[in-house]
């Protein structure tokens, strides 16, 4: 009996979940604090959650190059997990910075908002460090349940209700597929542990052609492709992104998407590496479809939030190209691209937070008319983010796309890279349209409502620095990303 306890303690290894543990503890303390705070004061909660993000960032960085494994092989806090943890923390930190003034303007200064962001981030961390299907599933659900609430957070706004309800129903639907996929893979391999699953499949090649394994792979991919908003599972994305509070839209497009990629890559390469031929041929088609659907439909949008929603679908397609390549440069390119996308997309949404008015009826192209002359610095920041989203040098978006497409070419998927580049060209149209509105159209009304507030400006400045640094000197981050591969 004592021996059993000894084995259990050795195998649990709390250090392996330290970052998410710290973040969850802060989240729970904040939850209690909110109960005792006067209603209508959310600023202390915002600062507290910012401290939580910074402390967790320090704890996460301390784990770099010192991998910890625990929970009977279920959790690995390796460099891969740490790299993604930093992405999630950057996304959450920038979201918190831009949220406070926004919540006050919209009349929902509620501290629980930040608690949910912390829990969603902790869920993402569990997902990135999980090496067991059970762990990855749990992380995904911690993340999703927090996000369902956040999407429907403005409970008196019909748009937000609708965003939350649609996200919830379709999210739970896709969870069913994901679970069925996990069940079938368990039936074939007899384990949830990805490393043992990988060993089993490579030792029993006949398992690859087992229809149960192929069906399991398809169903599991459906669940993940839903979360990363790949076509044809993207139907929820535009509605949820448009209806959700703007900072949450920004958060959803960066952090949780990166989390889904983290879990998906780990499962495909570690667990199902021997089935590579099956999943590359599936994801090849999905990647092309996602890029085309995202970019082509974005052209027809008039609402800027919705345009960025379709653009985020297209960007998921670019990142999928890296998974199809499945080589060192492609996968480290995805890691780089996720960080770059976090900076550029959150920056663009921070500008939208400033430009929007109460109730947000002001997010059409007309709302940006003449913006470039009325608020020149803000407009320059927006131009940098849009250039980065297009993939024009010297921005982070260019470097990220370069690595991903280089990976695809190296793996022999030249046509995939060509389609990706052509899609980037299509995307110029709808990004440039925003710039044309900013600089070449007369303003329809004055811009008195734009109040620069220090935290939002800080988030924009951080995002600009991130985009330019990763664009001009990508070498440092890409070598970190290469070190982060498992």
């Amino acid at each position, binding site marked *: 009996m004592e021996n059993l306890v000894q084995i259990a303690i050795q195998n649990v290894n709390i250090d392996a979940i330290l970052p998410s543990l710290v973040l969850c503890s802060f989240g729970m303390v904040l939850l209690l604090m909110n109960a005792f705070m006067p209603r209508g004061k959310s600023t202390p909660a915002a600062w507290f959650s910012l401290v939580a993000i910074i402390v967790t960032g320090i704890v996460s960085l301390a784990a770099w190059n010192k991998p910890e494994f625990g929970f009977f092989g279920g959790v690995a806090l390796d460099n891969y997990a740490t790299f993604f943890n930093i992405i999630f923390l950057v996304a959450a930190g920038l979201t918190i910075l831009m949220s406070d003034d926004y919540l006050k303007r919209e009349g929902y200064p509620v501290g629980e908002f930040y608690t949910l962001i912390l829990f969603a981030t902790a869920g993402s961390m569990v997902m990135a460090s999980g090496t067991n299907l059970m762990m990855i599933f749990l992380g995904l659900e911690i993340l999703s349940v927090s996000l*369902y609430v956040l999407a429907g957070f403005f409970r008196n706004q019909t748009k937000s209700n609708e965003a939350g309800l649609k996200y*919830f*129903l379709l999210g*739970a*639907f896709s969870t*069913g597929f994901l*679970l069925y996929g996990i069940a079938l893979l368990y039936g074939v391999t007899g384990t949830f542990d990805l490393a043992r699953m990988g060993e089993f499949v490579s030792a029993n090649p006949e398992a690859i052609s087992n229809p149960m394994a192929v069906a399991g792979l398809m169903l599991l991919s459906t669940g993940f492709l839903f979360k990363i908003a790949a076509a044809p599972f993207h139907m929820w994305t535009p*509605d949820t992104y448009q209806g959700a509070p703007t900072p949450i839209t920004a958060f959803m497009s960066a952090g949780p998407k990166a989390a889904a990629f983290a879990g998906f890559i780990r499962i495909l390469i570690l667990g199902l590496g021997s089935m590579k031929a099956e999943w590359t041929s599936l994801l090849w088609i999905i990647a092309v479809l996602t890029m085309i659907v995202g970019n082509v439909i974005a052209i027809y949008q008039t609402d800027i939030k919705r345009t960025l929603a379709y653009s985020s679908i297209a960007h998921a397609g670019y990142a999928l190209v890296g998974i199809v390549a499945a080589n060192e440069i492609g996968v480290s390119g995805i890691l780089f691209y996720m960080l770059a996308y976090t900076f550029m997309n959150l920056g663009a949404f921070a500008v939208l937070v400033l430009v929007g008015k109460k109730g947000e009826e002001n997010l059409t192209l007309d709302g940006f008319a003449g913006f470039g002359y009325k608020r020149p610095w803000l407009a320059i920041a927006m131009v940098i983010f849009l250039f980065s989203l297009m993939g024009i040098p010297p921005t982070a978006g260019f470097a990220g796309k370069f690595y991903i497409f280089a990976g695809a070419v190296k793996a022999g998927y030249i046509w995939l890279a060509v389609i990706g580049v052509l899609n980037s060209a299509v995307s110029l149209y709808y990004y440039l349209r925003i710039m044309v509105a900013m600089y070449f159209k007369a303003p329809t009304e004055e811009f008195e409502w734009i109040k620069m507030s220090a935290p939002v400006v800080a988030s924009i400045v951080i995002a600009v620095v991130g985009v330019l640094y990763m664009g001009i000197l990508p070498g440092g981050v890409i070598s970190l990303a290469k070190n982060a591969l498992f």
Partner: protein
Amino acid sequence: MISVNYFLVLSAILFSLGVFGVLTRKNSIVVFMCIELMLNAVNLTFIALSRHLGNMDGQVFVLFVMAVAAAEAAVGLALMITFFRNRESLDIDDANTLKW
């Protein structure tokens, strides 16, 4: 002796019924019940496979799935209540302010 195949076929049928319900029904609560049916079909698969393989992992997973489903139900019903308060309806066809 009932072989594992019967359980797998039964759960596949239950899962398909759930999917069919989600795609055809209009009331959000009924849609959510169909999703629960899908999750429980998966639970049955887990239990049957766990018994067949002589491996407890699958049964442990079922406990997690049930806990997660309960959390999802709490959040989902709350979202439906807020939707109902503003719209006086739970019909998913009424969720139509956001479209392309």
